[in-house]
């Protein structure tokens, strides 16, 4: 397989007296979907925020294309080709959908002094991209704060996908999505992967992970439990690992293993 685009080496992250990450290594290759799994509070979001320049690692080094890099801000990471959908979505509730969609990367028209935000173009693209994901927006002018949870999540995903990147990071992108939207997102992941983009996909849903994942890394309490390739691991093994290796709650059986 090819060289990895992004390699995180032995990352640690401390918040005051809390050790959120305690030496995690991870890499993404072009054209693969690498799933990051783990229990609640395992440190997945913290890890990908380190990857995308939100946090500076307390220890450890990030390499892109083999070269050590340091991201001062998410803007730096974006410039380097890392797009990210955060779990909290990073949207401004008071701003319109279109303005949120293009936030930080506004399309312009005109030249010099007349270079201006091309709002019609932005509105149009927003509507189109949202429709591709299965959401019919009433208007691109609607404030994000008035969208439903799933509509909001879709905006964040559509945005990251639209702007393309070498690495696409998705933190629980499907958590609030309906059936149709979920299948659209998984299909989209499949599509961008085929274009040679490396995808990092976080999910608590084993089926979603197995549907698109090429490799699976499980985090537990700030440390890696190991990485497995597709086919090396069964759904049940994965599920056990994701639950942190602790025994599942006793009622699971009575619910028919349907989770």
């Amino acid at each position, binding site marked *: 397989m090819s060289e990895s685009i992004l390699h995180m080496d032995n990352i640690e992250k401390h918040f005051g007296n809390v050790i959120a990450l305690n030496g995690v290594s991870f890499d993404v290759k072009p054209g693969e979907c690498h799933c990051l799994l783990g229990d609640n509070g395992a440190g997945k979001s913290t890890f990908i925020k380190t990857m*995308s320049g*939100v946090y500076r690692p307390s220890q450890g080094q990030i390499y892109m294309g083999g070269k050590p890099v340091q991201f001062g*801000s*998410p*803007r730096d990471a*974006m410039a380097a080709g890392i797009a*990210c959908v*955060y779990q*909290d*979505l*990073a*949207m*401004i*509730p*008071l*701003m319109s959908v279109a*303005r*949120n969609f*293009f*936030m*930080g*990367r*506004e399309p*312009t028209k005109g030249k010099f002094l007349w*270079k*201006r*935000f091309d*709002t019609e173009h932005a509105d149009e693209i927003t509507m*189109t991209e949202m*429709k*591709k994901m299965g959401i*019919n927006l*009433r208007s691109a002018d609607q404030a994000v704060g008035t969208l439903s949870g799933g509509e909001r999540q879709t905006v964040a995903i559509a945005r990251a996908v639209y702007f393309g990147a070498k690495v696409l990071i998705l933190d629980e992108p499907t958590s609030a999505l309906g059936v149709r939207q979920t299948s659209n997102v998984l299909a989209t992941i499949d599509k961008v992967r085929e274009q040679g983009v490396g995808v990092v996909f976080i999910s608590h849903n084993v089926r979603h992970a197995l549907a698109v994942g090429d490799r699976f890394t499980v985090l537990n309490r700030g440390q890696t439990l190991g990485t497995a390739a597709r086919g090396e691991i069964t759904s049940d093994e994965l599920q056990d690992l994701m639950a942190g290796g602790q025994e599942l709650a006793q009622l699971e059986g009575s619910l028919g293993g349907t989770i």
Partner: protein
Amino acid sequence: MSLENDSTVDERLKEESRVARLMKRPELGAVAGALLVAIFFMFTADGSMFTLSGIINILSPAAQLGILAIAAALLMIGGEFDLSIGSMVAFAGLVFGFCVVNFDLPLILAIPITLIFCAGVGAVNGQIVLRTGLPSFIVTLAFLFILRGLSLVGLKAATGGSTQLRGVRDAVEGDPLAPFFSGDAFQGFFQWAASMGWIDTFRSGLPKVPGIPVEIIWFIVLAGVATYVLLKTPAGNWIFAAGGDKTAASNSGVPVRKVKIALFMLTASCAALLAITQVLDAGSTDARRGFMKEFEAIIAAVIGGCLLTGGYGSAIGAFFGSIIFGMVVIGLTYTNIDQDWFQVFLGSMLLLAVIFNNAIRKRVTGER
């Protein structure tokens, strides 16, 4: 996937009138407030208030306030305050007066020096806010005191003991740049209109209004540019984003720090611009210039619909907010109301104007 077949009208949208759509814009609520106040004075004030000269007389202080208020509104939308702009007016006046009177610099040098100097102070403000993570309220408050104090010390040094620096008018006599920053514009036109008998004149035949005070021109231009920037440029989007949610904006790649620093520099420059026009008009500057103007600017911005918490507001709103404030402050002298009641009326009118503007907007947009 084909899109056309989906783009039918959404059945879940009620019809919305044009008026309703317009009134949803934050800027247009303030227009209703301004109208209410104007109508109030139509009934209570002396007729001379609504003559040409009366209107200019109201617009002139409103414009001076507005130059600050528009900048303050931009900064507030961007999520920060600048309490030092009032003191900055005095400080910039000192710097400018010093350049012009003590160093005999021509305006072409004195004005850029003043603007750059003040923008620099604004940048320092911004840097401290961003570096320390302290609220801008407290940082710029410190500069409120510091700049006010420095103006006093500087004035005394420049004049040898007085708190007033004078002689600016003599110093800039004949400077080609002066008409852009002081006096009245379109004087020829007004003279001509007077001679045609279209506008009021004094007994001497001179027009009562010799022209439009330049600060009004600046005010309108500034409102236009600020509105354009806010609504039609990427920078405007960044301002809204930075004020709406700093973390989310920065996570989405908005250069939040740069935006905020630029806004701090803008407010400081606008304060300097105001100081320059005031000093050139008055011919002097003193240590109390701009006293409390920072609050009036914030008041005007809030009347115009800006949220104190950032992320929402408009320059046009601040424009009309300044006009409301100016109209109320000056307008009461045109009425027969006992001036002891001035503050009671000022407060009540502000409250009424804002409640009215709010009620109108809610009714039109059908919010609960």
